[in-house]
C-alpha cells in the first residue's frame, strides 16, 4: 500500500533569503509568445459604404486589398482576409472579416443570421479541435472573432432597428465595440446628443457592449475614462495632407481639413489606443474565457452531455459526439429504408393493377376479333348465296336466249326480229 498526501499552505508566503531568479518568468512567457506569433481577428459589421475597409487601412497603417463592394448583394456574406503584420519583433496574424451586403436588402429580417452563423462556425472549429483525441492546440490558427466593430451610420438621431436587433443577437457571442462611422458628417454638438441617445438606447434594450477592463490599476484609469467616450466617433483616411510642415492622414474639404489623428476632430486615436495598444490581450482573453466557454457549454448541453460525477471515467467527447452522430445517421438510414420499402410496395401494387388492365384489354381484343370474324363469315356466306343466285339467273338467261335463237331460225321474219327488238 502506498501512501499519498498533500499539504497546502496556500496563504503561506515564504520569505526568500536571496535572489532566486524566477522573476524572469514573465520574460520567458513573453518570449515564447513572441516566437509563436499572435493572432487577432476583427469583424466589421456595418452597412455598405460606411468606410469599414478604409478604417481598417487607417488603423493598421497599410492598404489591405479589395475594391468597394456593390450594393446589389442578395444576402449578407462574410468575407475574411488574413494578413501577416510585423512591428519590431512582434508578428501578428491579423484577420479582418467584413460583412458584405449588410443592410442592402429590402427585407433585412435575416441579415444578422449569417453573421451569427459565422461566429458560431469559428467557435465550432475550435471546439472540434479541442475535442479531438490527437490535437495540436498550440499550433492551431485561432479564427475566433476577438472584437466586433459595429459601424453606426452617422444619422445624428438614433440607432436603426437593424442595429439594435443585430447587436442584441451578437452581444453574448462576441466583444462588441460600437463606433460612429464617417463622423465628420456630424457637428460636435449633435455628436454629443447622438452618443447619449445611442448609449441610452443600448442600455434600455439590454445590449451588452464590451467594457474596457478596470481591474488592473495600471490601466484602470484610462480604461474607465474611455468607457465614457463610447461609442467612438471615427473618421478614416489613408490619404495624407500637408498641415504645417507635417504630412498627416486627413480628409480635405473646401471648408477645412479633418485630421484623423487629431483628438479634437475625432476619436480615432482613442479607438486605436483601446483596441490595439491597451486591450488587445484582454479582448482575446474575454473571447476565450467567456464567449467561447458559453458556446461550448451550450453546445455540449444541447447534445445531451452532462458533467460526470467523480466516480465515472472520463469519456472522449469527440467519440461520444461521433457516436451520437452515427446513431442519428442510422436513424436516418432506417427511415430511408422504410420509405424505400413503401415505395417498392406501391410500385408492385401499381404494376399488378396495370397487369390486370392489360389482361382485360387482351380479352376484349380477342372478343372483338371473334365478333369480327363471325361477321365476316356471315357476310361471305351471304355473298356466296347472292353469287349463286346471280349464276342461276345468268344460266336462265343464257338458256332463254338460246331458245329464242332457235325459234327465230325456224320462223325467220322481221316480225320475230321486231318481236325480238320489242322483247329487248
Amino acid at each position: 500500500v502506498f501512501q499519498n498526501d498533500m499539504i497546502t499552505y496556500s496563504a503561506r508566503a515564504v520569505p526568500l533569503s536571496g535572489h532566486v531568479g524566477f522573476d524572469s518568468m514573465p520574460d520567458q512567457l513573453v518570449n515564447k509568445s513572441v516566437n509563436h506569433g499572435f493572432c487577432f481577428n476583427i469583424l466589421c459589421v456595418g452597412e455598405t459604404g460606411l468606410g469599414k475597409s478604409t478604417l481598417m487601412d487607417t488603423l493598421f497603417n497599410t492598404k489591405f486589398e479589395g475594391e468597394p463592394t456593390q450594393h446589389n448583394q442578395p444576402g449578407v456574406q462574410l468575407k475574411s482576409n488574413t494578413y501577416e503584420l510585423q512591428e519590431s519583433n512582434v508578428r501578428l496574424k491579423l484577420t479582418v472579416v467584413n460583412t458584405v451586403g449588410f443592410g442592402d436588402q429590402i427585407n433585412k429580417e435575416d441579415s444578422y443570421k449569417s453573421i451569427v452563423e459565422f461566429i458560431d462556425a469559428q467557435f465550432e472549429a475550435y471546439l472540434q479541435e479541442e475535442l479531438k483525441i490527437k490535437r495540436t492546440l498550440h499550433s492551431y490558427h485561432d479564427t475566433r472573432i476577438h472584437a466586433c466593430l459595429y459601424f453606426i451610420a452617422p444619422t445624428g438621431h438614433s440607432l436603426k432597428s437593424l442595429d439594435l436587433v443585430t447587436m442584441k443577437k451578437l452581444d453574448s457571442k462576441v466583444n462588441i465595440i460600437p463606433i460612429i462611422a464617417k463622423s465628420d458628417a456630424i457637428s460636435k454638438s449633435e455628436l454629443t446628443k447622438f452618443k447619449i441617445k445611442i448609449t441610452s438606447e443600448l442600455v434600455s434594450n439590454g445590449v451588452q457592449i464590451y467594457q474596457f477592463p478596470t481591474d488592473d490599476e495600471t490601466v484602470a484609469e484610462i480604461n474607465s475614462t474611455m468607457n465614457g467616450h463610447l461609442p467612438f466617433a471615427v473618421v478614416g483616411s489613408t490619404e495624407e495632407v500637408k498641415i504645417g510642415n507635417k504630412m498627416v492622414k486627413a480628409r480635405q474639404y473646401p471648408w477645412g481639413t479633418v485630421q484623423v489623428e487629431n483628438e479634437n476632430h475625432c476619436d480615432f486615436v482613442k479607438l486605436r489606443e483601446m483596441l490595439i495598444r491597451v486591450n488587445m490581450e484582454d479582448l482575446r482573453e474575454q473571447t476565450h474565457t467567456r464567449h467561447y466557454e458559453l458556446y461550448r457549454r451550450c453546445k455540449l448541453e444541447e447534445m445531451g452531455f452532462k458533467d460526470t460525477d467523480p466516480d465515472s471515467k472520463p469519456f472522449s467527447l469527440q467519440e461520444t459526439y461521433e457516436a451520437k452522430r452515427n446513431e442519428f445517421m442510422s436513424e436516418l438510414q432506417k427511415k430511408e429504408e422504410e420509405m424505400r420499402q413503401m415505395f417498392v410496395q406501391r410500385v408492385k401494387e401499381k404494376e399488378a393493377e396495370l397487369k390486370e388492365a392489360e389482361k382485360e384489354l387482351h380479352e376484349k381484343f380477342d372478343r372483338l376479333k371473334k365478333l369480327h370474324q363471325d361477321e365476316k363469315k356471315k357476310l361471305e356466306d351471304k355473298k356466296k348465296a347472292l353469287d349463286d343466285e346471280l349464276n342461276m339467273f345468268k344460266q336462265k338467261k343464257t338458256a332463254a336466249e338460246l331458245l329464242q335463237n332457235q325459234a327465230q331460225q325456224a320462223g325467220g321474219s322481221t316480225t320475230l326480229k321486231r318481236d325480238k327488238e320489242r322483247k329487248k
Partner: protein
Amino acid sequence: APIPVTRVDETAVYQMEVIPSYSSSAMSEAVVPDAMMPPAAGSLYGEKAGGPVVDFSYVGIDAILEQMRRKAMKQGFELNIMVVGQSGLGKSTLMNTLFKSKVSRKSVLAAAQEKIPKTIEIKSISHDIEEKGVRMKLTVIDTPGFGDQINNENCWQPIMKFINDQYEAYLQEEININRKKRIPDSRVHCCIYFIPPTGHCLRPLDVEFMRRLSKVVNIVPVIAKADTLTLEERDFFKKKIREELRANGIDVYPQKEFDEDAEDRMINEKIREMIPFAVVGSDQEYQVNGRRLLGRKTKWGTIEVENIAHCEFAYLRDLLIRTHMQNIKDITSSIHYEMYRVRRLNENNTVVAHANGIPEHHLAAHEM
C-alpha cells in the same frame, strides 16, 4: 505611405517600419527590465513619454507584449517539482538552496519524521513565493522511501501513479461542461532524480526508474553530494552516465526530439553536454573573502555552492528557474499531458466496450 507587399498564398506579408516608443524587453537571463513604460494614456502622437518622437506609421501592435506581461504578473505562476532519490542524498537541502528558503517538507514539519518509511510515500507541500512582484505557487513533491527497501522492485510504480493521477485530475477538469476559468495545474513539471556519487556508473535501479519515468515526465538527473568527487572523477562519472543513458534509450530533459528550431538545438546541446549536473546543496552561509556565501565548511576548505568552479549548482538553477522554466511547463502540458490524454481517451472507449461485450458505438451512446 503604404509599403510594397509580398503576397504569400492568401496572406499578404506587410513590413512596417516602426520606431517603438519604449524598449521592449530583450531576452536576458536574470534581469527584469525596469522602466517598462506602458503606452502613455490618451496622448497625442509624438508625445510618448521617455522615447523618441513617434513616426505616424506606428500602430502599436508590439504593445501586446506589455499587456501579456501585465496579465502574467496578475495571474502568477505555478511550478511543481518532484524530487526522487534515496534518503540521505540531500534532496531537501537542494530544494531549500534552489529557492533560497525553507520550502522542503522536512523544514516545515517537525523533525519527528526522521525515520525511513517502510513503503514509498508521496508527500507534497506548497508555498507562495514572490520575487520583484512576480508571484509563484511552488509545490515540492517528496518521495521518502524510494530506493530504501531491501527489495526495490516496482518502486517506480507509486510515483508513476502519482504523476498519472495529476494528469487525470487535469483531464477531468478540462472535459467538464462547466469549467473553471483557470484549471489548477498540479501536474508534475519536472522530476529531479538524485544519483548517488559512486563515481562508477548508474545502478540498475537508476536505469529502470529513469527509463520508465522519462516517458511521462521531464527528468533532470543530478549527481548528489558531488563534493565527494574530484573533478576528474566527476567528468568520468558524467561521461559514463551519459553513455548509459544513451545506451538505454533514456531521453532526459532537454529532450532532443522536442527541440523546436536550430537556435533551441544549439542552446540545448550545450546543456545536454553537461548533464547530469554535479550539485552540492547548502542553506548555511559562511564568510568567504569578505562575502557571505552559501556553502559547506570542511576542515580542508569551504565549498561555495554558487561557484561554478566548485560545483554545477548554478547551472542547474539557471536551467530550472531562470531560462527554461516556461519551456519545462510547456513540454509537460503540450507533450506529456497530451500523450496521457490520447491514451486515456482511446482506452476508455475500447476497454469498457470489451468488458461488456457491447460494440463501441452503442456503448458510447448509452453512456450518456
